[in-house]
């Protein structure tokens, strides 16, 4: 065991762990985060994704001691109490089924839009390809990424976003 310092969602933590422990377990079990989840432990599915300095990384195959930089988990995606445009698009499009994979879907989509604010269909498919969903919500994920890209660009240009329209329906508790 040794002390490892982690910067997660804007807060610095010191944890006393075996530094070879995959980051996933430290985030979940020591820091109590619920966004990154175990899906394969092999780097194959994306369920455990976190952003490190904006890059989507698979925390199940990363040693905690390697996790240098600012870590953002799903919990840290909203800013100042406002949902990330992707999270809003996910609600507007009613994307998830079980939702278990959507930590990875959202964070990989965030990393994509940060690199490429207006991706084509082909670019979305390529960038998201390694992030698996066994409920097969892919079609709506892709629609939601496009919706978020549009609303972000529209907001940047000062015109109203289309994502407000869906708020009226139903009552999220």
């Amino acid at each position, binding site marked *: 065991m040794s002390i490892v310092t982690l910067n997660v969602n804007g807060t610095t933590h010191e944890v006393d762990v075996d530094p070879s*422990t995959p980051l996933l*377990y430290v985030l*979940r*079990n*020591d820091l*109590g*985060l*619920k*966004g990154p*989840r*175990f*899906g*394969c*432990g*092999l780097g*194959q*599915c994306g*369920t455990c994704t976190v952003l490190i300095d904006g890059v989507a990384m698979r925390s199940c195959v990363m040693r905690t001691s390697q996790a240098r930089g600012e870590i953002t988990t*799903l*919990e840290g*995606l*909203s800013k100042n109490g406002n*949902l990330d445009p992707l*999270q809003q698009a*996910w*609600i507007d499009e*009613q*994307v*998830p*089924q*079980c*939702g*278990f*994979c*959507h*930590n990875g879907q*959202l964070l990989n989509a965030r990393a994509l839009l940060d690199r490429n604010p207006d991706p084509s269909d082909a670019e*979305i*498919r*390529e960038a*998201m*390809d390694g*992030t*698996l*969903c*066994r*409920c*097969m*919500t*892919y*079609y*709506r*994920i*892709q629609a939601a990424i496009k919706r978020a890209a549009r609303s972000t660009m529209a907001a940047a240009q000062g015109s109203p976003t289309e994502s407000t329209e*869906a708020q009226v*329906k*139903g*009552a*999220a*508790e």
Partner: protein
Amino acid sequence: MSTTLKLPKAMEDALHRINPSASRRDFLRASGALVVSAGFSAIPGARAIAAVAGTGLYPDPDFLQLDTWIVIHPDNTATFFVGKTDGGQGTGTAFRQMMSDELDIAYDKTSLIMGRTDITPDQGGSGGSDAIERDGLPMRRVAAEARRVLLEMAAEQLGAPVAQLKVKNATVTVSSDPARSVTYAELVGGKRFDVKLAGGNVDATGGMADIKPVDDLQYVGQSLQRYDIPAKVDGSLTWAVDVKLPGMVHARNVRPPVAGAALRGIDESSVADIPGFIRVVSRGNYVAVICEREEQAIRAAQQLKAEWAPPADAPFPASEELFDYIRGATPTSSSDPEIEGDPDAAFAGADRVIEAEYDVPFQGHTAIGPAHALADPSDGQMTIYSNDMKSYGLRNGVAEFLGIPREQVRVIYMDGPQVYGRTAADDAGFEAAFLAHELGRPVRIQWTRDEETAWDTKGPAYSFSLRGGLDARGRVVALEYDARAVDYNHVGYNEADTVLIAQLMGRRPAEPARGNAATPAVMYAIPNRRTNSQVVALPMVWETPLRTGNLRDPNGPQVTFAYESFIDELATAARADPVQFRLDLLAGSNEDDVFRRARSIAVVRAAAKAYNWDERPSPRSRDANRRQTSGQSGAGPEESPILTGRGISYTFRSRTIAAAIAEVEVNRQTGHVWVKRLVCAHDCGLVINPEGLQRTIECGMLHALSRALWEEVQFDREKVTSVDWLSHPSLRHSDTPETIDVVLVNGDPDPDRSDLAPYGAGEASHKPLIAAVANAIHDATGVRLRRPPFRKERVLAALRAAEV
């Protein structure tokens, strides 16, 4: 060692909001009712409250008490308690819509608790797509009864007869004098209804009130957003995998290295040096390691030295040998042939006889998150935090397995990765309970990826032989269907003697389950028919990773693949358009009590219309294909490797009708298949939430597309070799169709009738899809693929063999 964790306040609040059981407990205590102990004990602090409230015993919630289903709070909101679970298809939202309508309360003033065996009535959990169709009815009747009772109370309070009252948003008003009103909360908020319901079983539960006619439903039919989605996208939801308890430890299973291996010995010293190591627990061939921390348990499971003796005989043939094995095996059971007309004479007199064989491999659930559960044995009770879709069965099964009274066991159902039948036999729940019972500490178990892919329950493999006779005009005069399913010893629902841990411990029932080989679900009029179905067994029946269990309409996709592929083959032989051929077969059949014939015709027509289907026989002519694709790509007529085609398939699942159309692009140089467009027409009667339904239909289709294009459990003669996402690929983003159209059909002959019933929708769209893809590939290429998955190597080999 910090394995416990205080949940952040915001999460605690969020949990409390969606699990307001603490207030229910307080309410019950305040009203002097039998105290239901322990609210959400995962929340530190809540346990202390629970201890005050009383611990240990969890009697069955009485489904004949209105209070078990509905609580009106002092703030004029309501909580509904139902014995169901929601695998992410939005059934929870639909339950709230239905119950809000019947109770006459605003939807957003309600909340819902599902599947908690200590505080929700036992409706069996989920399965068979009958959440809305069957289990929604008692919910509606009970909510209607609550409304009736509240109106009677209001009549007394307001001094006006019920007939002169109206009710809206949980407020009762005198029609003639709106100033006189009383809220539900003023009538019963924080108090018990204490109203006895009627009904010989939970499905029949109801009171004196009738449910509302369709026209009076306000929320039913609206696309309300699912209440569970925000917490799933902002990271605030606490899933079953997230629960942490004081003193909790981590377990991992150690499975036999080859199927049927017997444990000879364990060298515990091989893991004794691992920090945090607590214990190896083994019984029979079941082995688990337990450590303080999760990563320690992972390491211990990998490092443990155990000696295993392989079985004397191969447990199963290799996956490439499977279908020869199935065809050559002696069945364990055969159903009596169903015979209509005189098939032998009809075949003898037929103008042409067509025959074909189809095979479907084992396909697994392979949930994105492997099996998991947390069991807490403190205070002489056993609480299991689980995503078991049939939480009540888990409770009963665990009590029996551990030999403790069921009143000491409760299951707290929480969200988890997709279920689709997997958690109907919740292996991890039993394992966690067993280990916690042994250790006397809360134990969380988590299966690994390879364990889940190799050892989860499988959809049965099938071999089919079909034979059809056409007359000179191309009409089907005879059809013979033979199905063989590898389904012997199909695992039951959370049975204490068939879950995996029981099998590995050598605890098993006297007789394996008989299993099932299914027959087609179509409304076709074929005058002479013989239908045979047989079950076969693999050599190793127990402790096998090739256990069959329920996978999203357990037999439907396999059977419909074979049958609807064969109908297409007959249409091709008859040179008929595949849609018209089906409509002709439907036209002559008899109607049934839920109008499945009329609704089938409406659905097939609606799919064809939505697709803009052009009437012609399949396959598409090579010239037409070249013209179109070269026109699209701008390349010369010989250059485009892409062949396009479309295929239809139709079936029903129980009372719900579905027709799917797939449009494919097949690359004849690589064999790669892309399903570019999907259409589903779907009639499930009364629609509760159109958008939620549409999503479920889309995902049901894509789940089957994954089975059509990718999924196959592979194994050698010792073990399953499909162990991860490389050796067991699944549908990916790049496979997603460009367009998916869902058409919600109401094909009832009296579509506006006031008692239109809702039918199940979790599986129907999943069922016809594999056949639609196979039919589309045939339309594009002229090559008939009779065994999924249609991975490119298999497609290319077939194209080469046919010189396409």
